[in-house]
């Protein structure tokens, strides 16, 4: 199958007063996996359902492979959809579930069967072809659902939080498998999730959505390291809000370091601003003359997270690679920014510049 591009053009959907989707533009390249990430109610599922044809937009067009399919009913769209959970037909065994789409396409039985065996093999469930959904674990059910979606050789694969009902270990494993199957088949895929770690790890590009709008779309690295807006910064990963002062050359004085400022630039030099800094871009060093105290230290495996209280009462989260000799709770420390740049989020209301 040759991969096709998906093009959403000014898609709008209202539910009464609520604008679920506000003129969404999105391009997905052929064979690309784009993850739509956002909190619940941000419009990501609405976008997916409009693309699948389960819902009809109030405005805008949907194009797949250059063809406008806005008015094509869902049953004729040729898309493979995997739902959050429980979407397998309970009255059919795994193989019959997988065959369903081909049956609707009036494929002869032997071909159907062969294809079903093949896709079930692809998701590693050949041995479970005769099992009914209630005999399968949650992870197995989602694999069958994936096989069922792939069986019809869809032009586009749509995944609606397919992992959110699974427990952590299965989730991570299945995430990897979905990605490898998707890459092997080179199928254009839209993946909707509210889990930022999931989106970052699986996608070619991540689109962060907020209140019906796409806040930022870019590679996982871009979205994580150079968030375009404060919302993206705080939704993806953990952020500290600290006060900083803008310098004349577009640089930023934060916690005793001089960083490159990004974000809204329409501010005068010398202005006090709120700056967003990742926990791993901060460092706490034991220092009897420091202006902060370690309040709590949590060992999280490869890294250790410290909660540090500054003398002005504000708190910071600081991540450090786990090693011996990290400051214990109660120890006085000095805090320093170690990154190269930082995002200015707004005026520093109620923040005082922290001493280094």
């Amino acid at each position: 199958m040759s991969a096709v591009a998906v093009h959403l053009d000014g898609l709008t959907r209202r539910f009464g007063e609520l604008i679920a989707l506000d003129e969404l533009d999105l391009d997905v390249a052929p064979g690309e996996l784009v993850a739509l990430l956002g909190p619940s109610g941000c419009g990501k599922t609405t976008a997916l359902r409009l693309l699948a044809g389960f819902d009809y937009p109030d405005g805008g067009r949907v194009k797949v492979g250059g063809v406008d399919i806005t008015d094509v009913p869902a049953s004729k769209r040729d898309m493979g959809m995997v739902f959050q959970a429980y979407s397998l037909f309970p009255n059919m065994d795994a193989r019959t579930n997988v065959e369903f789409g081909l049956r609707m396409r009036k494929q002869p039985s032997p071909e159907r069967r062969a294809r079903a065996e093949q896709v079930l093999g692809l998701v590693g469930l050949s041995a479970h072809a005769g099992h009914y959904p209630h005999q399968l674990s949650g992870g197995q059910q989602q694999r069958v659902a994936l096989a069922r979606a792939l069986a019809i050789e869809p032009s586009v694969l749509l995944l609606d939080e397919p992992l959110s009902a699974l427990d952590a270990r299965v989730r991570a494993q299945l995430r990897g498998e979905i990605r490898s199957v998707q890459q092997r088949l080179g199928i254009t895929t839209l993946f909707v999730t509210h889990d930022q770690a999931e989106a970052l790890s699986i996608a070619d590009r991540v689109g962060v959505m907020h209140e019906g709008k796409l806040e930022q779309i870019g590679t996982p690295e871009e979205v994580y390291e150079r968030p375009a807006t404060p919302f993206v910064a705080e939704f993806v990963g953990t952020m500290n809000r600290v006060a900083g002062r803008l310098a004349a050359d577009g640089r930023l004085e934060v916690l005793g370091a001089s960083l490159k400022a990004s974000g809204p630039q329409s501010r005068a030099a010398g202005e006090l601003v709120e700056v967003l800094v990742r926990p791993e871009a901060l460092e706490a060093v034991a220092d009897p003359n420091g202006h902060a105290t370690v309040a709590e230290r949590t060992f999280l495996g490869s890294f250790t997270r410290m909660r540090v209280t500054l003398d002005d009462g504000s708190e910071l989260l600081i991540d450090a690679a786990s090693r011996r000799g990290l400051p214990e709770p109660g120890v006085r420390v000095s805090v320093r920014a170690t990154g190269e740049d930082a995002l200015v989020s707004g005026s520093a209301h109620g923040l005082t510049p922290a001493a280094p």
Partner: protein
Amino acid sequence: MGSVAVLEQSLPEDPAARRRRGIPRGAWVGIVPFTLYVLVFLGGPLYEVIYGAFTTTGGSLTWHNFSQTFSQPEYRSAFEESLKISVVTSLLGGFFGVWLACAVVTAGPRSPLRRIVGSGAGVLAYFAGVPLAFAFIATLGRYGEATTLLGHVGIDLGASGFDISSLTGVELAYVYFQVPLMVLLITPALEGLRPEWREAATGLGASTFGYIRHVAAPVLAPAILGGLLLLFGNAFAAYATSYALVGIYVNLVPGWIQQLISGNVLVDENGIGLALGVEMIVVIAVVMVAYGLLQRRATRWLR
């Protein structure tokens, strides 16, 4: 009206129950009062029925009572009528009940329509009995509102041969509680149909008909069949409505039982009434066992 339909929702078995092996020593004492009560107050009358059906007045074992129920035309006719009315009203009730339930379920679980139909169905399905009969007499009886209304437009209900105090009237009244009963029985199964199934089917290329044929109908089939069985048993055991509508001389098995044991026929035919009672129990027990088997199938899918 029978209480057959209480099996409405079957309770899924507690999975923890299977894991815990053995019964704690002495714990069975806790269910002794309950068991004794059932043994005395259910077992007592039941014993009288069975004992009386199989013995002569002198106390010797006999098959006579049963052979009478099979050979005497009046009893056979009553059995046929009872079976007929049960089949007809359960099919009608089942058909309209499923249809109505579909309309109500689509209105959403917390809609006022749902609450009103739900509780209304509860009243009519379980507790209508005598009041239902009088409502029908007030509607279609000789001086009923509908009869009068139809008289005004030139339709003489009485002359057309319709009589609310007849088996036709009883049938009509039974449908009146069979439909709501089916609504109560089938609603949980309809609610168990997940929207994802429909969307998945549509996304895979199925039309609405294709979805119904391949997914919805097979998934609902055990529940609908089970519901029909309960409706059958319910109509078969029902008596209050027909008693209030027609009286004890109604040509249905319960009517004959009451006539026979009240001594309204001939002396010493008590045993025949009890034999009819045993036969009723057998019919309903068979229906219930079939229902139980179907229910296991229905709930297997809808977990």
